[in-house]
């Protein structure tokens, strides 16, 4: 049986490369040969070097840049200017608001946010406003007469304090 297999292998000539394979191998080898020849030629060349005349202007410009202030300082200076401008604007705005408020006879203190109607109605339904005395004029630091919503809020706070 072993003998037969050896004969068969010999007959099929597996050890001999086919014509196609030979051509392919030779083509690849030839390509590699030529590429290596390009590689060798490149290796024998060298890249152009910087001309001597370039050294003086390059170093002159670079030294100029070296002596200029650092870009980070420029950036910081720009940020500082921008921040100062914003702060100045805010301060001036605040002074103007205070002045305008005093001119109108009011207080710069912001009034409370308006309570939505439904919510005011719900609170008012819980509170009997007649149970609580409301000398509210001026109690918010304002000469303005309190609104109904102010009264409702004040009443509800008394109511909650009494009951809870």
């Amino acid at each position: 049986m072993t003998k037969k297999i050896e004969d068969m292998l010999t007959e099929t000539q597996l050890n001999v490369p086919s014509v196609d394979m030979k051509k392919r191998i030779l083509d690849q080898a030839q390509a590699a040969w030529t590429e290596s020849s390009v590689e060798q030629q490149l290796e024998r060349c060298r890249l152009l070097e910087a001309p001597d005349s370039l050294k003086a202007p390059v170093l002159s410009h670079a030294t100029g840049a070296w002596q200029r202030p650092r870009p980070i300082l420029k950036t910081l200076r720009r940020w500082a200017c921008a921040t100062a401008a914003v702060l100045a604007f805010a301060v001036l705005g605040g002074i103007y608001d205070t002045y305008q408020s005093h001119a109108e006879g009011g207080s710069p203190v912001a009034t409370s946010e308006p309570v939505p109607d439904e919510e005011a109605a719900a609170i008012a339904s819980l509170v009997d406003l007649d149970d609580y005395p409301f000398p509210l004029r001026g109690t918010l630091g304002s000469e303005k007469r309190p609104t109904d919503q102010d009264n409702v809020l004040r009443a509800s706070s008394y109511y909650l304090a009494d009951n809870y």
Partner: protein
Amino acid sequence: MRADNPLALERIYDVFGSQLYGYQISLLCCKADAEDCFQNLFIRIAEKRRLLIGKEQLKAYLMTMARNEALEFIRRRKKTTPTLVDQEAVLTTDETDHFLPVEELSSALAALPLEQREVISLKIYQELTFAEIGQRLGISPNTAASRYRYGLKKMKELMQEVIS
């Protein structure tokens, strides 16, 4: 550099100048552009000098700066000049070596895509390994090797076209 002395620029120029210029000219394939770009590079080095202090791999850092400057230059060049810039010879050799087709090699190298040209330049003229090239360009060593091989193959074809 630590003493903030501009003479450090001259030292950098003397030690790394030719390699930086060679790398940029191999990317740009234009002597005039390479000279402008080289000048910009040294201005950038002067501006960023504090980042260079204590760098262990100063050469690698400078090469990356040179690459970024050249790529930025190429981007700007594409925006400003829609036509192709005339490619110039970027290779040279000893005058005694008459057997090298320097012009053909230069033209073939300049005609390669930027990625392949860059790998060939780094491999042959900066003598980096594929692993180092891959690390520097952010690609795998296999990709670097493929670009190198395809680049040489294409150069061979281009040179054969010129010769025939």
